[in-house]
């Protein structure tokens, strides 16, 4: 199995970008210092947040779970070091909104003492389901940036048959080099992780794909493959074209197949995992360590010593910058992720989370030209890897035509930024798409809420109607009773002994009726508040 023999294909569009990776690959990965405080957001992944397992004042050990998954698509969070929980409250989180989210704050004790770990020495002794459970407990999420719970991803369902496992080491975004460095320095662990995932999904092949601008990484992995004489794992060098690291684009390059828009790679017998995730799987299974650290690229023209760092989750970004020599004076933009898809942060007092692969500091850009109207040049469509019509999407999004924009496949947009990058009119196209997407989601939430409100309103109307009817019925009965009483009274003149008993009986009867009515009303009330 030689690398060169493999046939590769192209995806539509894409860009050749200046990679700028070399500035952060000059030195080996540096271990970041143990911080005094760790801020751990309970929600660091796609899906539901887990339930808290600790309270303020609790002592925690390194690797101890502080939340536990209650839903299927979820991942627990672990204490990255030993110490005391000093606060559980809302803190600013790294998110484009800059909003706060629930975090557990741990004051570290400096001992960095591990909780008891349960390594698995022979993976063959465990079933894939058991291994999945271990991965779930270790809180592993996709480390390429999307942060989707890995335990869910490696379980494509009983009917899916995974033929090939693809390990994504493309890392196509400029500046980011954490996967590159990881492949260079953790090639053995990576191969071990690949083997575990391959075993779990019973894939016959495993392809480790690396862009051809990372020759050292390819060499390091190839060396391990040769050394261990592995026949089912292959490293594939692919052309450097952004965004070849996108899951669907990567699959197209390797297999020429297109993942259906409403489907998953498993529908065509494939599973894609990031290299960092594979190493995390190795650590979780072989060493028993949960996901408590990751490699972060600290880079950009605005930071003095660009480098890759192994960072405990929850460490403040400001400390990483400080340990990388600090900012240059002209630093002006802090980006989490790469320059093409990352989002800007307002401050560096934010914790590193599981999905944080890169901290990019940009220095003052030249005066950006003013946004001009679209001149319909079509450059956007020619670079769109999803083969969409960015220009049409832009018109529809800006005119808030949310129905049509979905017909033109807005949700197939991967927000890679190629269109905006080539737009001569400097239109922030991606922001228009993000606006439309979040707006559509919001409308969907509103729709669900209003449907719910309608049901409750209708129920209340029905209840009031019923109560009204009941009241009318009661009134009618009372009147009837009164009538009867009158008749009885009239009759009493003729027959005295009976009249003595009658009013009493009527009073008792009326009282019993009242109780019954009350009961009925109460029941009615109960059912409505149960709703």
């Amino acid at each position: 199995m030689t690398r060169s023999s493999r046939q590769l294909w192209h995806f539509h569009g894409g860009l050749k970008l200046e990679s700028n990776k070399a500035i952060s690959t000059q030195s080996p990965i540096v271990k970041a210092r143990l911080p005094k405080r760790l801020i751990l957001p309970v929600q660091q992944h796609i899906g539901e947040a887990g339930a808290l397992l600790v309270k303020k004042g609790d002592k925690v050990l390194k690797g101890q779970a502080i939340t536990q998954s209650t839903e299927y698509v979820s991942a627990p969070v672990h204490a990255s070091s030993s110490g005391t929980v000093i606060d559980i409250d809302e803190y600013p989180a790294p998110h484009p909104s800059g909003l706060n989210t629930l975090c557990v704050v741990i004051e570290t004790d400096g001992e960095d003492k591990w909780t008891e770990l349960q390594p698995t020495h022979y993976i063959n002794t465990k079933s894939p389901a058991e291994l999945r459970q271990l991965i779930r407990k270790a809180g592993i999420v996709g480390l390429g940036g999307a942060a989707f719970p890995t335990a869910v991803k490696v379980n494509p369902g009983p009917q899916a048959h995974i033929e090939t496992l693809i390990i994504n080491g493309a890392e196509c975004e400029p500046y980011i080099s954490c996967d590159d460095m990881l492949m260079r320095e953790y090639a053995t662990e990576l191969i071990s992780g690949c083997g575990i995932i391959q075993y779990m999904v019973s894939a016959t092949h495993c392809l480790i794909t690396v862009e051809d601008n990372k020759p050292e990484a390819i060499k390091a992995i190839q060396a391990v493959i040769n050394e261990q004489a592995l026949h089912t794992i292959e490293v594939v060098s692919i052309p450097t074209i952004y965004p070849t690291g996108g899951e669907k684009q990567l699959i197209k390059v390797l297999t020429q197949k297109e993942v259906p828009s409403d489907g998953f790679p498993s529908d065509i017998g494939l599973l894609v995992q990031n290299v960092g995730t594979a190493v995390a799987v190795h650590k979780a299974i072989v060493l028993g360590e949960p996901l408590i650290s990751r490699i972060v690229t600290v880079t950009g023209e605005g930071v003095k010593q660009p480098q890759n760092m192994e960072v405990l989750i929850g460490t403040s970004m400001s400390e990483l910058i400080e340990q990388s020599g600090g900012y240059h004076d002209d630093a002006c933009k802090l980006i989490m992720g790469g320059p093409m898809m990352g989002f800007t942060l307002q401050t560096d007092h934010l914790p590193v989370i599981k999905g944080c692969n890169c901290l990019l500091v940009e220095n003052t850009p030249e005066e950006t030209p003013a946004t001009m109207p679209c001149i319909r040049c079509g450059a956007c469509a020619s670079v769109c890897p999803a083969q969409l019509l960015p220009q049409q999407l832009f018109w529809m999004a800006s005119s808030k035509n949310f129905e049509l924009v979905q017909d033109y496949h807005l949700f197939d947009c991967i927000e890679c930024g190629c269109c905006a990058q080539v737009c001569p009119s400097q239109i922030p196209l991606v922001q228009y798409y993000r606006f439309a997407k979040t707006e559509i989601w919001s409308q969907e939430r509103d729709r669900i809420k209003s449907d719910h409100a309608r049901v409750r309103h209708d129920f209340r109307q029905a209840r009031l109607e019923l109560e009204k009817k009941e009241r009318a019925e009661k009134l009618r009965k009372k009147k009837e009773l009164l009538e009867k009483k009158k008749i009885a009274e009239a009759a009493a003149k003729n027959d005295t002994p009976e009249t003595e008993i009658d009013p009493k009986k009527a009073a008792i009867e009326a009282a019993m009726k009242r109780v019954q009515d009350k009961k009925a009303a109460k029941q009615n009330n109960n059912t409505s508040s149960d709703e």
Partner: protein
Amino acid sequence: MQFKTASSPHIPQQNSVQGLMFKVLLAMVPGTIAMIVFFGWGVLINIILASVVALSAEALMLWIRKRPIKPYITDGSAILTACLLVLALPQLAPWWLTVIGTLFAIIVAKHLYGGLGFNPFNPAMVGYIVVIISFPKEMTQWVPPLLEGYTQLTFTETLSIIFGGDLPLAYTWDAITMATPLDTVKTQLGLELSINEIENHKEYGGIFGSVGGFGWEWVNGLFLATGCYLAVKGIIDWRIPAGLIAALLVLSNTFALYDYASFTPPTFHLFSGGIMLAAFFIATDPVTAATTTKGRWLYGAGIGVFIFIIRTWGAYPDGIAFAVILMNMAAPLLDYYTMPRAFGHSWTEFPHHHKTDDDDE
């Protein structure tokens, strides 16, 4: 430390509308110089006049529409419109003709439709059509090429003709103007002469040069060369000129093979009149062209077909402006029917297959 926020991508990019326009303008320089060399100063005088008028009209309209003036006035689009219009006009077009054409192009065809990016029709071609329909006589004031035996006007003479409207004493209109090769072919074919007889006519045969008309060959050749450069650099889309030239080539070749006496040869079609200017500089205006790849092939080819039809059977010697405007109208339709298939979708889905109410169920 507080940082700036913005949506991705965060890489400063090099493309700009202004950059595109100026590169296109620059690419027009060699062909324009050839025109000045072969057909006199009229071209230059009218270009300067039209540019000044276009910029003033642009500024005025931006001011009226309360839009920022600086970014739009410097984007080069107004000058480009002015140049394209002038290159299509006869060299001795009087000043007011140029002014009316330019004003109509900028004010009506461009700004009344919303300005840059929103005009459905090519402004220069709209301006051209207005003047050719309104002032057919003045639109014949072409000058003979730089050939022995024909009067060559000096700069000052040209200036006084364009602005004064009166001829210098020594000249008559017949002496200083002359029908273009395209025009000549059209009239003479009407008089039942064969192509061969026309091209070798002892009186005017000289203007036909070797392929597309003396002087015109050079003009078209240079526009072709610089246009190809723009296409290679990706500044214009190559499919539009390719489609246009291919369609014109196929049609003219077919008809010339069928009857070489009544139909001009393909080389003449390609190198006479404003074909290369139209193919690489007019039809490629992105605002008014189709946007999809297939759509651009069809758009270019459509212009080629219309040019051939109008040249051969129409009332006008050259039909570029009408062909372009007709295809401008068709551009949205072409775009709609040539939408690409989105990644991971099939050809049978919307928008290719139109949604009906049944699909909603």
